[in-house]
């Protein structure tokens, strides 16, 4: 398996988030995947679109549900040098949200720009 491995391979990875947190576990387990990817020195992109933008909504408080509030972890991504976070503008607007509602710095781009960005990726992982 190792024969084709090039130590310096850097691919453009994108983790696409379209699902909201807590109703399903995907948001949490994608985040665990993103954290691991940091160890591989790849060019990591995270896209938040459709209901995925709710993952980074400010003010999450899961105390009454007894579930783990993992939203602070998005703030820790910067410490792992994962800084390419993209949010689709149309999806924010459809939900009555704005950039001020988000708990991490992101680049807000249009649907057309998101489509172009996705087209540049080597590996797209979705859940």
């Amino acid at each position: 398996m190792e024969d084709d491995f090039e130590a310096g391979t850097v691919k453009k990875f994108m983790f696409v988030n379209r699902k909201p947190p807590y109703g399903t576990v995907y948001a949490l387990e994608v985040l665990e995947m993103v954290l691991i990817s940091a160890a591989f020195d790849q060019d990591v992109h995270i896209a938040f679109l459709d209901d995925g933008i709710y993952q980074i909504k400010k003010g999450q408080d899961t105390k009454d549900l007894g579930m783990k509030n993992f939203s602070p972890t998005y703030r820790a991504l910067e410490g792992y040098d994962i800084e390419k976070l993209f949010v689709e503008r149309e999806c924010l607007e459809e939900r009555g949200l704005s950039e001020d509602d988000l708990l991490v710095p992101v680049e807000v781009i249009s649907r057309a720009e998101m489509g172009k960005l996705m087209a540049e990726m080597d590996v797209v992982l979705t859940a």
Partner: protein
Amino acid sequence: MKFGILVNEGPYNHQASDSAYRFAKAAIDKGHEIFRVFFYYDGVLNATAHSEPPSDDRNVIKNWQKLAADHKVDLVVCVAAGLRRGIVEASLAPGFRISGLGQLIEAGIQADRMITFGD
């Protein structure tokens, strides 16, 4: 009042099992009876004996087990759905029992209200 509860999804992947547990707990706290909780479809996976979630998260299986122990709640896992998914006597957590789908229909007949939690 007697409630019957149907749980359609497994632990962690969907909130269904958590929601069902919180509903059951609130009903008991208000003096109602839980006639039965029936686990069907992927819901049977709530009865796995091997789940070890991270210590900073809730333990869905233990929540159900404690509810059963404290309030004698009948936790029934569908035998056919369990066989498909690997929930059999050898992998069953204490507090759950395996039985047939008839137990679900019976719950529908005998409970005053039947409520489903799923995906």
